[in-house]
C-alpha cells in the first residue's frame, strides 16, 4: 500500500537520508528508533505536511509525491491528540466529513459504529478540555477513522497516557485495525506495544532506516550493533569467527553452525542466559565460571552482571530465584547459554 523510494528531507533540525520503505495493505507496521531518529518527520512526509528534497511516495498504484495533504486520504493521530478545542467531541469526529462526499445513511452507520467501539456515546457533546487523556485519544482515533482513510499514521499515540489507559487504548487500536481495511503505520518507543500490535517493523537511526522486517526477526537477529543495542540485546560483543566457534576477548564461544567469517559481532539476549551456583549439566554448549559484579534491581526482575575472564555477561533473574540461589555481588557462579541463542551478524 505504501511505497517510498529514495526519500530525502532537509529541515532545520531534522533530516531523512535515502529512505526506502514498503508497507503492505492493511498491515500494522511500526517505526522504532531513538529520539531524533526522524520517525515523526517520516510520518509527516508521508502525510504531505512537510516538503521533500527528493524521492517518491506511492499509495497503492498512485503517486502522491506532489499532492497536498487534503488530497492524500491519509489521516494522522498525534501524541498530544490535537483535538480542536473550540468544537465538541461530535464536531471533532465529524470534521472531516465537510470535505468528503458520502451519503447520509452510510455516515450514520459508520459514526455509530466508531462511537460504540471506542465507547464515546456519552461524551458526544463535551468539549476536549473536559476529557481525560484516554478519552481524548479515543476521540482523536474516531476522528481520524471517520473519513475512512487508506492509511492511518499514529505518532506515539500511547506515550502521553497514564499506564492504566494504555492497555485500554492499545486494545482499541488492535480491534480497529482488525475490523477495517486501513493500513496502520505507528511510531513508538515501547516494546510491549511493538510486540503486541505489529507484524512488521523498521528501526530508524539518524534519519536512516537500519533494519526492516518481522518483529521477531528484528528482536532476535539484529543486523547492526545499533539495532542490537536498541532492541535490548545486552550481551553484544565484537568477535572473530572461526568455522563453528567465535572468540571474544580470548573467550571461546560455541555457535554450533558455520557462519560467514566476515561477520563481526555476536549477541545473546539476556533472558537466554542461565545463572547457576553449580555447573549446569545440560546440552548447553557454552558454560563458564565467573564472578557476579553487579546485581541491579529493574523493578520486576533483577539484572545480574557476571564477569568471565574479561567478558561481562548480563542475565535476568526473578526475585524469587535471587533469594533461592542466595546470589550476592562477588560470589562465583556459572553462566550458561545455548549455541543456538548466539546471534551473529
Amino acid at each position, binding site marked *: 500500500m505504501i511505497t517510498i523510494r529514495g526519500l530525502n528531507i532537509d529541515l532545520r533540525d531534522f533530516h531523512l537520508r535515502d529512505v526506502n520503505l514498503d508497507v503492505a495493505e492493511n498491515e500494522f507496521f511500526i517505526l522504532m528508533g531513538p529520539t531524533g531518529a526522524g520517525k515523526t518527520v517520516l510520518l*509527516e512526509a508521508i502525510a504531505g505536511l512537510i516538503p521533500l528534497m527528493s524521492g517518491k511516495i506511492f499509495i497503492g498504484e498512485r503517486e502522491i509525491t506532489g499532492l*497536498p495533504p*487534503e488530497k*492524500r486520504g*491519509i*489521516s494522522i493521530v498525534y501524541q498530544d491528540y490535537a483535538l*480542536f478545542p*473550540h468544537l465538541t467531541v461530535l464536531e471533532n469526529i465529524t470534521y*472531516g466529513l465537510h*470535505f468528503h462526499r458520502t451519503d447520509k445513511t452510510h455516515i450514520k452507520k459508520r459514526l455509530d459504529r466508531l462511537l460504540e467501539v471506542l465507547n464515546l456515546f456519552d461524551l458526544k457533546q463535551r468539549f476536549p478540555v473536559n476529557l481525560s487523556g484516554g478519552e481524548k485519544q479515543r476521540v482523536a482515533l474516531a476522528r481520524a477513522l471517520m473519513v475512512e482513510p487508506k492509511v492511518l499514521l499514529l505518532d506515539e499515540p500511547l506515550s502521553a497516557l497514564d499506564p492504566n489507559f494504555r492497555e485500554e487504548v492499545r486494545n482499541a487500536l488492535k480491534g480497529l485495525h482488525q475490523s477495517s481495511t486501513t493500513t496502520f503505520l505507528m511510531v513508538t518507543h515501547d516494546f510491549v506495544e511493538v510486540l503486541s500490535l505489529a507484524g512488521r517493523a523498521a528501526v530508524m537511526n539518524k534519519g536512516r532506516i537500519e533494519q526492516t522486517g518481522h518483529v521477531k526477526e528484528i528482536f532476535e537477529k539484529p543486523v547492526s550493533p545499533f539495532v542490537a543495542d536498541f532492541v535490548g540485546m545486552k550481551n553484544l560483543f565484537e568477535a572473530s569467527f572461526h568455522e563453528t566457534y567465535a572468540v571474544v576477548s580470548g573467550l571461546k564461544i560455541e555457535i554450533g553452525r558455520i557462519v560467514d567469517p566476515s561477520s563481526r559481532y555476536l549477541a545473546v539476549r539476556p533472558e537466554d542466559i542461565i545463572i547457576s551456583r553449580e555447573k549446569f549439566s545440560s546440552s548447553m554448549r557454552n558454560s563458564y565460571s565467573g564472578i557476579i559484579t553487579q546485581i541491579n534491581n529493574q523493578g520486576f526482575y533483577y539484572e545480574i552482571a557476571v564477569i568471565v575472564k574479561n567478558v561481562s555477561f548480563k542475565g535476568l533473574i526473578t526475585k524469587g530465584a535471587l533469594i533461592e540461589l542466595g546470589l550476592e555481588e562477588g560470589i562465583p557462579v556459572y553462566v550458561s547459554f545455548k549455541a543456538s541463542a548466539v546471534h551473529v551478524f
Partner: protein
Amino acid sequence: MKREPFFWITVSCGIVIMAFILLPLIQMMSAPSAGMLKETIQDKDVVRSIWLSIYTAGLAALISFVLGTPLAYLLARSAFKGKRLVESIIDLPIAIPHPVVGIAILSVAGKNHWIGQILSELGIRIMGSVTGIVTVLTFVGIPFYLNAAKAGFEGISPRLEKVSRSLGASMSSTFFRITFPLAWRSMLIGIIMCCARAISEFGAVVIVAYHPMIAPVMIYERFEAYGLKYSQPVAVWLVSISLLLFLILRILTLENRKET
C-alpha cells in the same frame, strides 16, 4: 502572614505606575467646568472632528486587519531567509518620528513621484483629504495589529492545522474553520491597539492634512490660538468617547469567554 520585601517592592512599583498614569489624566479630565464641556460638545466643528477621528481610526484598523492578517499568519507559521529583517521593518513605523512619517507620505503622494502621478491620474488625492488621513493612520497603526495577530497565531499549535489538512481541508478551509476561531480574540486586541494608536496620532496627520481636521489637530489648534481653557474640553470629550468605545469592545469579547 509576614510578607517579604519582594512583595512590597512589587506593590509599590505598581502604585507608582498607576499614579504616574492617572494623575495627569485626572487633572486633565477634571479641569474643564461642566458648562465648558456642554458648550464644547454643542460646537458643530468639534463634533465633526471627533467623529472624523473615530471614523478614520476605525477605517485604518479595518484596513490593517484585512491586509495585515495574511502577513501575520505567514510570519507566525513559516521560517524564511530574511524573516528577522521583515519583522524589523514592520516595527519601523513605531520608531520613525511622526512628522517624518507625514513628510515621507506627502513626498510619495505628490506629482513629483511616480506613485503620486498615478494617484493623480486616478483622481485620488492624499494631501488634505480623508484618504490621506487614513493612509497616515494605517501606516502608524499597522505594526500594532500585525504583532498582536502574529502572537495570536503563534499561540495555536500547528498540529491542529496539520490534522485539519489531513482530514481533507484545504489551507483556506483550515484557516477559516480552525485558525480563525481560535485566534480571533488576539486579532480583536490587535484591532483595538491599532485603533487606539491611530486616534491619538497628531504629528504625521497635521503635515498631510490640516483640514479636514481630526480631533488632535483641533486640540492643538485651539491650544495655540485660544489657550488651555478652550482646548481641554475637546480633549476630555475625545478621551471619554474613545474610552467608552474600547470598553464596549472589551466587554463584548469578555462575554464570549464564558463558553470555553
